[in-house]
């Protein structure tokens, strides 16, 4: 059994209007960063899980797809890394 750190990234689907991202983009433009485009605002969620890698991967997939994101309007991806004990 190991301990894993998971990073989950949730973003609105490209087809969904992101008013928050657009507002940030406009603000950046006002701050003389007119070359910035395509700003999208999303969520970053950290989790710690314990178990075997296979168990944890299956569980993380379930959590990410069924709780942390709404597949109707969001895309989600995750990264998993084993935590070194005592490091």
């Amino acid at each position, binding site marked *: 059994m190991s301990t894993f750190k998971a990073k989950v990234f949730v973003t*609105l689907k490209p087809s*969904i*209007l992101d*008013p*928050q991202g657009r*507002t940030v983009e406009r603000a950046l433009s006002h701050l003389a960063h007119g070359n910035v485009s395509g700003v999208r605002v999303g969520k970053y969620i950290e989790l710690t899980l314990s178990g075997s890698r296979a168990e944890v991967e299956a569980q993380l997939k379930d959590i990410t797809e069924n*709780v*942390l994101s*709404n597949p*109707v*309007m969001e895309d989600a991806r995750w990264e998993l890394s084993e935590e070194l004990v005592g490091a």
Partner: protein
Amino acid sequence: MKTAVIQFPGSNCDGDALHAAQLLLDQDAQFVWHTEAGLPQGTELVFLPGGFSYGDHLRSGAIAARSPIMQAVKAHAERGGFVLGVCNGFQVLTESGLLPGALSRNRDLHFLCRPVHLRVENTSTAFTGAYTKGQVIEVPIAHGEGNYYADPETIARLEGEGQVVFRYTDNPNGSLNDIAGIVSERGNVLGMMPHPERAVEALLGSEDGRGLFDSLKGALVSR
């Protein structure tokens, strides 16, 4: 009509929901806490009230949709029982899969709190029988995430099957096709962002919400 008003941590229109149900649906309404496993015996209408369940954390309605009582609400809906979700209640219904689509941030990012006008698009549902087709009613909204979205196939299906029940006459939040309220395929689950329970007495500025409760009573009698 025996009504269960579900309370989640952060519900804040539960009192209004209970009041409207008691006033217009024969008094027989009670609160049910979200940790309960079952609905009171004989529940005919489940009312998911507005508010900010779990502070809208993660996504509005997401955590509430996964609370214990929702299993009983789903079973109730599967039996054909009536479910009414208003505002946050609508968000809980989409998050729990009882209604299609999702509610996202308002187009202009502002929290909107004002009366709006809705056109009644379908009067052959249990929730709208007391209105006339095309009738425009005034009902308040109060939400930051009421922008209705669904993929094009779902929108086409909703429109084709007459599941769009209420439409904004002056779309305040960017909802696709001006959608303000939809019913499930079977017609027994209604979700809407505007608050009919806040428009049931002249004192409140509008009585136009009464029609929804009158419709439900009528539907129950004819069952």
